[in-house]
């Protein structure tokens, strides 16, 4: 017998370059908001913590949590590239579902400006990182392939950036809350051909948190049921792979999550997906089943994924515009879907949102189709 689980509460810091704030200061904002949102009496009600971070120092979670009274309980820190936060969420959900813990804090922390002046430096122990293969180049590779194979246009890729910037205007926590035009996106400087600056996420500092527990009652006004979550690492990505890097891991993880939830992609009202680069959202919407292979460019062009369209994608602004503090991103996505499903998303609210999906995938290990991917389905049956 497993326990039905729900998100009781969520919280986040602001997103952006915030070198004046420490990891603990960002964490306090996110966790205390989540505790209050969940209706917990205080930090002492938390049974366990799963914390996601990529570049956080060893002990970053214990260092951040002690001053707000989260001590003595198990604290498990997870690194899973860009999926670190959603991996923490997935493990927290499984811990509640299995009865191991009752009230679990899933936390994401990242202070990237403390580590990098510019883009993330490639990992020198990696076969590709050692060649200077920075993250924008892997997405530039995908974009080149999509232009060649499917005729995806520069304008279609730019429209992802235009859409997500427009969405972020309604998000007071976002890093880039301003509109941009297709012309501005394409005129910004080239980063990794054919991707320009406004098609690439910035580095950011932030924390995000969720309290997960057993579903309190079917009519509880704050609980957002977790219908499923799935986690996979990538299979070998090599000469046998006809699809671009990351397509299969998202499709296979989504299939698991949809099956567990008993839904298909057409049942989903709102998505928060991994759009660190514009081509990433195009590839991911295909892999999540919103359209056929190769149709992601036309999908964004059609308005299907805009707020006001049938299935909005990244109403928060996504990684491109809300911001991408790696370990905190997954829980920021969870927070956005919780707000959307409760009808608390303000100016960016998606009408009648009842089922939401979060997808995060991370990479950096050469030879596999992604280090990890999490897909979660939230909402009422």
């Amino acid at each position, binding site marked *: 017998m497993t326990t039905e689980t729900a998100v009781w509460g969520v919280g986040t810091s602001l997103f952006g370059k915030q070198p004046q704030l420490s990891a603990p200061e960002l964490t306090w904002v996110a966790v205390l908001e989540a505790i209050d949102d969940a209706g917990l009496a205080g930090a002492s009600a938390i049974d366990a913590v799963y914390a996601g971070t990529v570049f956080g120092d060893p002990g970053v979670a214990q260092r951040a949590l002690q001053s707000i009274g989260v001590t003595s309980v198990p604290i498990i820190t997870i690194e899973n590239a860009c999926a670190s936060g959603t991996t923490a969420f997935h493990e927290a959900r499984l811990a509640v579902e299995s009865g191991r813990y009752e009230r679990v804090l899933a936390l994401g922390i990242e202070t990237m400006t403390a580590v990098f002046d*510019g*883009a993330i*430096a*490639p990992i020198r*122990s*990696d*076969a*590709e*990182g*050692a*060649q*200077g*293969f*920075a993250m*924008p*180049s892997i997405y*530039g*590779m*995908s*974009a*080149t*392939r999509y232009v*060649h*194979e499917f005729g995806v246009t520069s304008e279609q890729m730019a429209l992802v950036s235009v859409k997500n910037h427009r969405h972020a205007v309604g998000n007071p926590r976002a890093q880039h809350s301003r509109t941009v035009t297709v012309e501005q996106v394409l005129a910004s*400087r*080239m*980063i*990794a*051909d*054919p991707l320009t600056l406004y098609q690439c996420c910035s580095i950011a500092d932030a924390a995000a948190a969720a309290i997960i527990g057993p579903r309190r009652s079917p009519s509880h006004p704050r609980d957002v049921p977790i219908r499923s979550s799935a986690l996979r690492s990538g299979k*070998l*990505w*090599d*000469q046998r*792979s006809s699809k*671009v890097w990351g397509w299969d891991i998202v499709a296979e993880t989504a299939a698991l999550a949809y099956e567990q939830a008993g839904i298909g992609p057409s049942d989903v009202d709102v998505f928060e997906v991994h759009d660190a680069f514009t081509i990433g959202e195009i590839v991911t919407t295909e892999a999540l089943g919103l359209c056929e292979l190769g149709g992601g460019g036309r999908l964004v062009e059609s308005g299907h994924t805009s707020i006001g369209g049938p299935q909005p994608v990244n109403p928060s602004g996504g990684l491109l515009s809300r911001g991408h503090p790696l370990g905190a991103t997954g829980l920021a996505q969870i927070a956005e879907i919780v707000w959307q499903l409760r009808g608390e998303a303000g100016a960016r609210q998606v009408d009648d949102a009842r089922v939401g999906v979060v997808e995060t995938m991370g990479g950096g290990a*050469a030879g596999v189709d992604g280090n990890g991917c999490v897909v979660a389905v939230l909402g009422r049956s």
Partner: protein
Amino acid sequence: MSDRLTLEPPELGPADPRPRLTLVDGVVLASGSRCAACGHAIAVVPPRCPVCGGDTMEGTSFGPGATVFTATILRIPVPGREPPYGLAYIDLDDGPRILVHVIDSASDDDGDGDGVAVLPLRPGGRVHLAGWTEHGDPAVRPSPADREDAP
């Protein structure tokens, strides 16, 4: 400015994870292994095949010919390197997919390494292993007919 091409094998430390090239009778080849059971080709020599689990991985070499799966030009600073530089995933003929640098030394009029252009490659185009960059990365040159600026 792109990297310069060299045929002088670099001294890569034992922990250097990059694909290894060898120079055989003036031809540049990539080192790796092939599974005796299922035929899977890989650019390292693991103790067992990652596809079928077979325990006979026979050391071999691949190339020099290859087909471009996809490519890009990276234009942001990376520690220790000067942008821009061309990168490509190539499928070595009957061999593994590896990441390589792209060097168009055809544009280097006097062969001194200066004036080497960063060259975009098209998926499906033909390239061949040509040596190393001055950083020790495996490098390819495009076949003349497959230059993107070819008529």
